[in-house]
């Protein structure tokens, strides 16, 4: 099981088995090391593709299996999308390259433990009474909940005079230009590092970010973070596409986490792509897209459907009967969202979407502060997100109801191969 994609492909029928054999954090603790726990999970078939996005009777958080941490690619990209997100962008505050490397090693070790359902360090209790425990403890007794932790490196990390990485910045790690209509808040854009924590239980995802932030203090500081719920796209095409906060199915034609050919073509960086240390990695674009919920809700059904180019009930493209029927783009209005975002309108540009809905309460005017936290993985941003967003920003009818308020891009390195490997080893060696 060196490849999460393969793991996904091979275990589509394992969901039931995973349900019954999913170990709790407590029991995993009792089993000993992470390797043991993972081995047991893998033997039972409880790997990446525990499906939480169908019409399962059992809530996904209760199936709770562990996703393998080690592999050719980082988990959390092709992995079947979990229910919850805590995404955090960090500034690196240390100037010392050695300290940054040590941090990445410490983070890798903690991530390996947490994704296996174990506590950080020496645990959350039982130590010295006068000292704070290593683990913060709020995930005790919870299942691994398919937690994945995915790290990325922002362009600022490669700046000259910082860590000697300026020669290693991939060309594909572009500075994202300002698009028309963008109203970006620099306080929640960009970042030297990012960690995407996805899990079926929000507490497990938050616990992971909190503990990594704690380990990082003095070397990194959280720059901004975002909680997400209700995944808005699926990497498992036979399941129903989840709905966004506007009530529409969006992202039906997403890259499937089991389609190794499409992943190789559109998502994973190849060894001839110019930055050898990125082989097996991917590029992530994160955008916080605020929705003008109240005005949307006052919009007539016909206009809502015209804006997307799909019907609201089934999610079928204009003139078609079923959600997955091939859309006939010319039947849609020229500014329909689906028409503009479709690969056929963008020279085949394809991205793997992994976004989540967010609701951060209400703003000072009583408006719901909600929208889509857009996450897209691709092999090359210049052939993925950029052309699609260029076309959308210019013409999309949806723009009347949304605003992009934060933006960030990260180079997501390949997976951690084994216990001696660590996040970003190839970049720093």
């Amino acid at each position, binding site marked *: 099981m060196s490849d999460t994609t393969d793991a996904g492909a091979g275990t589509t029928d394992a969901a039931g088995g995973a349900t019954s054999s999913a170990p709790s954090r407590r029991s995993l603790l009792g089993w000993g090391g992470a390797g043991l726990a993972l081995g047991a999970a893998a033997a039972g078939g409880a790997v990446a593709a525990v499906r939480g996005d169908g019409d399962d009777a059992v809530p996904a958080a209760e199936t709770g299996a562990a996703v393998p941490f080690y592999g050719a690619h980082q988990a959390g990209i092709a992995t079947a999308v979990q229910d919850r997100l805590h995404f955090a962008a960090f500034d690196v505050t240390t100037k010392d390259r050695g300290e940054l490397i040590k941090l990445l090693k410490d983070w890798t070790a903690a991530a390996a433990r947490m994704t296996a359902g174990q506590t950080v360090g020496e645990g959350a209790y039982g130590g*010295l009474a*006068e*000292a*704070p425990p290593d683990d913060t403890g709020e995930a005790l007794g919870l299942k691994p909940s398919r937690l994945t932790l995915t790290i990325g490196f922002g362009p600022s990390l490669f700046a000259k005079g910082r860590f000697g990485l300026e020669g290693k910045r991939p060309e594909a790690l572009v500075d994202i230009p300002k698009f028309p209509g963008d109203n970006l808040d620099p306080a929640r854009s960009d970042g030297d590092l990012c960690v995407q924590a996805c899990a079926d239980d929000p507490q497990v995802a938050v616990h992971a970010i909190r503990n990594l932030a704690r380990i990082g*203090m003095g070397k990194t*500081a959280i720059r901004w973070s975002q909680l997400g719920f209700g995944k808005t796209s699926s990497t498992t095409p036979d399941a129903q596409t989840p709905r966004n906060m506007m009530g529409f199915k969006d992202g039906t034609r997403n890259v499937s986490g089991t389609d190794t050919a499409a992943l190789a073509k559109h998502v994973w960086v190849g060894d001839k792509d110019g930055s050898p240390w990125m082989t097996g990695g991917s590029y992530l674009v994160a955008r916080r897209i605020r929705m003008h919920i109240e005005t949307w809700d006052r919009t007539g059904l016909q206009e809502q459907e015209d804006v997307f180019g799909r019907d609201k009930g089934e999610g079928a493209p204009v003139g078609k009967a079923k959600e997955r029927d091939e859309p006939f783009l010319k039947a849609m209005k020229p500014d329909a969202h689906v028409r503009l975002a479709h690969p056929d309108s963008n020279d085949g540009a394809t991205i793997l979407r992994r976004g989540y809905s967010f609701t951060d309460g209400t703003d000072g005017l009583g408006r719901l502060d909600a929208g889509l936290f857009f996450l897209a993985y691709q092999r090359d941003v210049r052939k993925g997100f950029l052309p699609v967003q260029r076309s959308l920003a210019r013409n999309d009818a949806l723009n009347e109801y949304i605003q992009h308020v934060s933006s960030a891009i990260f180079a997501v390195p390949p997976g951690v191969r084994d216990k001696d490997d660590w996040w970003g080893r190839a970049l720093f060696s």
Partner: protein
Amino acid sequence: MRAVRLSVVTAATTVAALAAVTGCSSKSDSKSADGAIQVTASDDACKLSKTEFAAGHVQFAIENKGSKITEVYLLFPDDRIVAERENIGPGTKQNLTAEVKAGSYEVACKPGMKGNGIRQKVTVTGGAQTPKRDPKLDAAVAAYRTYVQQQADETLPKLKTFTDAIAAGDVEGAKKAYAPSRIGWERTEPVAESFGDIDPKTDVREDGLEKGQTWTGWHRLEKALWKDGKIGDEEKKLGVQLSTDIADWQKRVGTAEITPTSMANGAKELLDEVATGKVTGEEERYSHTDLVDFKANVEGAQKAYELLKPVASKNDPALTAELDKQFTAIEAQLDKYRTDKNSYEFTSYDKVGEGDRKQLSDGVNALSEPLSKLAAAVAK
């Protein structure tokens, strides 16, 4: 300021209630001095009739044969006060009783009520042995106790400058003296707060008041000076009250219970004060002198750390290396906000932008996180 909190150092009153070791100097001690230990104090001697006695209720019969007013203390090895008798006039006799467990103690006479006094080691036998502690840690606690007392002593004249200006109705003079009058308190805040009755009178903020509680202390005067810009009769009375309360603190601070781990956690709590109150600008919302408090909190934490370092660096050298680095880093960060490194004139906090506040907050986190591990390194 935090509301009543007793986690760091147990308030002296609590210690008394627990009766683990109870100092008692009540007037009813005038019963016969059978078996009492005779203490003969003079201007240059402190004689005891015996230096070894049994645990339990111990009585000292004190006679001052000197020419100066004296004080007699029974002290733990770390200089914490077990029991004391003050104001013993020349030619007078006083009794002092204490409930004492087995262990080593010192008796000190302080002719003229100044200095460390004339010391005598005494041994209390029998009963439960108090657990043995690294003498280095006892020394650290004793030195920290001296520091705390020193800070309190040095606060009085600085506070007087402030309250004198209040009494004179001098708004500008009072504004100038306000922040300096708080430095000693801020450096030793966890100990100061251990006296649950003093802190709510001296350092409470308006939003920390309980129903029915009258707002007194520094921040009430801060509001009068900066927001209202005037000193009335009410403020003058509050100035007098603050002097009384701080003098009370200065007298009692030596009785706080301090242990090596409470010192370590007290250092961390000083940084917590910064993280929750100062870095947000809440503490000094009218005067915006938060960075002065910030600096004093860091200095107090550093003092406790430096004293514990000989032990901590042996148990966890990586931790003390990190702490050295982070203390240096936070000092450098703070220095950016003052032009003269020997002065406590810091940039007004309302002039510190959000980005800079975030950096200060990150700096505090970077120091507090390893500092929270100091207690464990000391207790190993």
